[in-house]
């Protein structure tokens, strides 16, 4: 059973005061997230990531479509007892201490009183806030608030956790800790769905990713599968101090460092490049495949989307 099935959810907002305009925040979205995976939801700012999460959380209502979470209709209140949610740049009741806040959320999530106290202690320990549990949140830094946010999302031991930009505002150590926590959640058999625009985080963590841009899904799959679909490149290195004109003619991107020349060319130009270097009597040193990163895939997808939009217009 998939953890999340999004069945054509879409959202159009009416904007403007007198003359209402329709703004499509999310085009019909079809997406399935399998049980137990870490799923990255990627896209630039304003792509529709947060709108999707808000729709799934019932914070905004869809214009059309539906979803199933853990096998149930996503609007069923019982489903919410099994999911955790960290909003983007979370803000909490700052008159409460970290302990009181988690206690309150535990109450609302229906965690039985006997387990609640123990669970709050465990979570405070897990997110590294045990020493400051009695301090009011108004005295917390942004990073500490993010930890509180993560704490409240996992407090009731949910089967599925939604994180909206979880690394936002964290220092490198904090980001590392969140990554570790997400991996730990996966090992505990939980499903993690997180949105981010930081691709290195997605690359390091995700089993699968989806890319969304201007409210439209542009690609979904395992990172290796997605990146392999982008035409590969190779780096060719030879001894020399000048770039022959015939090499430039192949469209190579060349850099001269000391007595070596490095050229990046498309994989399908590799044989032609070798022939040119032989003819020019250059001494070849190395040919290395350049690994296509998720970033390259992402940029290509966005560029393609822009081009398509330009052509259509």
């Amino acid at each position, binding site marked *: 059973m998939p953890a999340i099935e999004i069945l054509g959810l879409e959202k159009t907002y009416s904007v403007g005061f007198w003359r209402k305009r329709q703004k499509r925040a999310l085009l019909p979205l079809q997406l399935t997230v399998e049980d137990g995976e870490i799923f990255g939801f990627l896209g630039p700012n304003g792509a529709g990531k947060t709108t999707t999460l*808000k729709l799934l959380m*019932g914070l905004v209502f869809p214009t059309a479509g539906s979803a199933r979470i853990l096998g149930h209709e996503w609007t069923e*209140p019982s489903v919410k*007892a099994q999911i955790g949610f960290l*909003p983007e740049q979370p803000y909490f009741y700052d*008159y409460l201490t970290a302990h009181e806040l988690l206690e309150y959320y535990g*109450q609302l999530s229906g965690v039985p009183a006997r387990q609640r106290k123990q669970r709050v202690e465990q979570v405070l320990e897990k997110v590294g806030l045990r020493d400051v549990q009695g301090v009011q949140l108004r005295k917390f830094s942004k990073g500490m608030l993010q930890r509180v946010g993560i704490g*409240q999302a996992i407090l009731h031991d949910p089967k599925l956790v939604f994180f909206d930009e979880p690394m936002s505002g964290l220092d490198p150590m904090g980001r590392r800790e969140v990554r570790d926590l997400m991996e730990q959640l996966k090992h505990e058999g939980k499903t993690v769905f997180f949105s981010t625009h930081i691709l290195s985080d997605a690359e390091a963590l995700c089993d699968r990713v989806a890319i969304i841009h201007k409210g439209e899904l542009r690609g979904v799959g395992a990172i290796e599968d997605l990146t392999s679909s982008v035409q590969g490149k190779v780096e060719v290195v030879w001894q020399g101090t000048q770039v022959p004109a015939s090499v430039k003619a192949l469209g190579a991107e060349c850099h001269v460092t000391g007595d070596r020349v490095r050229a990046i060319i498309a994989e399908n130009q590799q044989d032609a490049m070798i022939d040119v270097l032989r003819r020019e009597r250059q001494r070849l040193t190395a040919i290395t495949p350049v690994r296509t990163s998720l970033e390259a895939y992402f940029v290509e997808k966005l560029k393609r989307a822009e081009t398509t939009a330009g052509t259509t217009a």
Partner: protein
Amino acid sequence: MRTRIAYIASNTFREAVRDRVLYNLIAFALLLSGAAILVGQISIEIEKLVVINLGLTAVSLFGVVIAIFIGIGLVSKEIEKRTLYTVLSRPVRRWEFIVGKFFGLAGTLVVNTFFMAIGVFAALFYVSHKFVRADALILVALYFIILEFLIICSLTLLFSSFSSPLLSAVFAFSLFVIGSFAEDLRNFAGMATGITHWLVTGVAYLVPNFSAFNVITSVAHEQPVAGQLILQNTLYALFYATMALSGAVLIFDRRDLK
């Protein structure tokens, strides 16, 4: 369900206490003790009348101001600061949130009124040196003030569910002022003719009739309050507050939290 409402109500109460809302009690105590000492010196025979009038009016006004200024932010502030996201992503229904907020605010006002009532009785004891049986009527006036607060709480929540805090404050305060003159409005409707009659009658019955809750002057003159009025006011306040809360729930239930 009931427990979730209770948790939300208790958190709302805690917010009010920690945001030092009850500090108004200090201002109230100062006002009342100052007034008691002053009237003790300048008025003859009517000290008690002045203290009851002044005390109960202050209880009512302080409470109304608190109800409006907390109430207007109860929903809109939670949306603006996005604290609502982590509440509604839990098994909490939107109507439970509204009802919980209502009880939290009402509870704050009841506690506030309780302490202010102690102040009124203390000032009364200071000027008359004893309590008489008729002083119990003050409790009826206080009960009516609390009923008035319930209506104001529900109205501020209704406005807060769809408009900004500033507009909510303007709407709520305007309704309080118009509602305080509801009887006059009804009298005017009786005198008017044609479309004006129907229009004014409609408005007069739509706005909350706060003038029916004001028994301060008669209580100060030790005139008894009819049991029927107590029953009528209780039913009216509960009906009006329920209607306003239902409106708030209906609006909030359909609202996108952008």
